[in-house]
């Protein structure tokens, strides 16, 4: 269009003879060299991530425990790190606890991602349909939740679900859902994970709901109106008109949610008072405990790398989709 514009406006082009001017941003991208533009970001990421990442890979192929740590500061004491090839990885594959933990993590991620997206989207749709003051309050509340430091939020949740003084137990009992006074939510793992899920989803909803609401406001009114005139039910309008338009943003939100939920660590760790029992292990916690409690840094690193590879594998589809989105535009 611009090219056509230039040609159809001879008077303006004549006023500026010589080489055709290109927009600044485009010029920067083409002539300044895109490599120059991405360089600073690569430097920052490289400086901080490269060595730790390299170290992580090295450790995964070593036997590295307390003697090796001692050896680092006192070369005569302890033992030097020993290369063990894929031993740490094969240890993981023969470790029933690893498979249990992995299965738990996959289920946990699926439940949390599903719940976050469904509830977040539902809230976003709801925000389109409530009176303006209520919408404003909803937005404000979402922002409050988002702005709350994770540490504080988790401490509060721990308190609300407390066995003795927990408000949740009090309210559930008062509402006649059963006898919940002195109920311990962590005695049964599935109940414990219900609490964790509740807390994770609560914390993740603001980002999803605010983003989805913003996306919904960009769905052209005419399309929705046309579908409605043609007799589509609200559900059909959502499925057949809105969903296709929202798909790119949904893909991004889903992939981000998977990445975040597969790595959930702090929530379980703090809700379990910094001492999670083995049946509350997710892969991140398993790897952390293996490294820093059992001091088997080699095995812990191997577990981290397996986590990383699984996530990369799961997200290949999303990464491809993201690259495709970026190429369509």
């Amino acid at each position, binding site marked *: *269009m611009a090219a056509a*514009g230039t040609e159809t406006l001879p008077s303006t082009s004549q006023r500026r003879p010589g080489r055709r001017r290109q927009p600044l941003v485009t010029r920067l991208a083409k002539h300044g060299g895109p490599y120059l533009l991405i360089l600073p970001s690569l430097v920052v990421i490289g400086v901080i991530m490269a060595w*730790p990442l390299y170290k992580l890979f090295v450790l995964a192929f070593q036997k590295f425990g307390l003697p090796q740590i001692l050896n680092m500061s006192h070369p005569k004491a302890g033992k030097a790190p020993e290369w063990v090839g894929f031993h740490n990885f094969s240890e993981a594959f023969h470790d029933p606890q690893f498979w249990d933990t992995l299965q738990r993590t996959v289920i946990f991620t699926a439940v949390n991602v599903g719940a976050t997206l469904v509830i977040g989207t539902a809230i976003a749709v709801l925000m389109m349909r409530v009176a303006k003051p209520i919408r404003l309050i909803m937005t404000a509340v979402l922002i409050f939740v988002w702005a709350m430091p994770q540490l504080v939020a988790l401490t509060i949740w721990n308190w609300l679900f407390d066995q003795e003084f927990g408000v949740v137990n009090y309210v559930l009992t008062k509402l006649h859902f059963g006898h919940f006074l002195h109920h311990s939510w962590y005695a049964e793992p599935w109940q414990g994970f219900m609490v964790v899920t509740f807390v994770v989803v609560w914390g993740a909803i603001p980002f999803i709901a605010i983003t989805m609401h913003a996306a919904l406001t960009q769905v052209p009114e005419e399309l929705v109106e046309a579908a409605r005139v043609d007799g589509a039910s609200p559900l059909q309008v959502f499925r057949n008109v809105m969903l296709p338009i929202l798909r790119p943003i949904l893909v991004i939100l889903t992939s981000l949610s998977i990445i975040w939920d597969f790595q959930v660590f702090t929530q379980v760790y703090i809700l379990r008072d910094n001492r999670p029992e083995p049946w509350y292990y997710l892969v991140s916690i398993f790897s952390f405990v293996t490294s820093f409690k059992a001091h088997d840094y080699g095995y812990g690193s191997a577990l981290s790398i397996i986590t*990383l590879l699984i996530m990369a594998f799961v997200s290949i589809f999303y990464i491809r989709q993201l690259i495709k989105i970026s190429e369509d535009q």
Partner: protein
Amino acid sequence: MSAITVRGQRRAGNSVRSKKAGGVKSKHGGLVANVIGILIIVLMVFPVYWAVATSFKRGIDMNKITPEWFPVPGTLQHYVSAWKKEFFLSSLKNSAIVVSVVVVVSIAVAFFAAVAVARSRFRGRRAYIAIIIGIQMIPQTALIIPLFVMLSNWHQQNQLLGLSVTYMAVILPFCVWTLRGFIANIPPDLEAAAMIDGCTRTGAFMRVTFPLVAPGLIATSIFAFIQAWNEFVFAYIIMQNNNKWTASVWLASFITQQQIDWGGLMAGATMLAIPIVILFMMVQRFVATGLTAGAVKG
């Protein structure tokens, strides 16, 4: 093509205020929707309310079998003691420095990268995108110790610079990706058109492209701001000197092995949340359109 996209942009800007966008039937919405909306507000806000209410409660009203729902009679004592607690002002200053540096530098760096990814098809572009997305998948807990060792070797432990650069590395990928969407949504033709109409190159950029990217820059900055302001784990590991604490590490000092100072913790948290909430409220309009502009085409 360009016209459609421009209209989409404009719509995005207006629709946050307009009541008609996106299929809202009536001005006040349905009764059921409003009731559910209020219910969700109550459920979502309760922990936040509980934190703020606790910050005003007297010590004897806090841990009760029958909860005290309202902080009456209240006290401001926790705010006074939180304000007077050691290292409050220094940690606030440290946080302010780190957050400003992180936000300004990340956004600038991310903007350059986003321009490259959005506007040119260079060799290695896909690899770069894969790095940007892949970097977010690395379990952070696994990197903490080697990172700590590395920063110590470089004498960057307990240094604001070391922490700031760490935050940038964590935040950059998201910023690049979000900004890419904004820039991709602005047709290059617009700038060309402005230049045909007599703008200089810089003028065209400042008058046409920049205002259109501005919501994106604001939305991304807010995200970076919240991340850096609330981040705890890296700060806790890297900033171990008391006078180098950031605000979130300072908050954690209310929680000790022996006990939790509920009133102080909640008063401190409330004070620290205020800047974020005010900032967010001020730019909420941009954030709403901002976060999605890249993904949903107008």
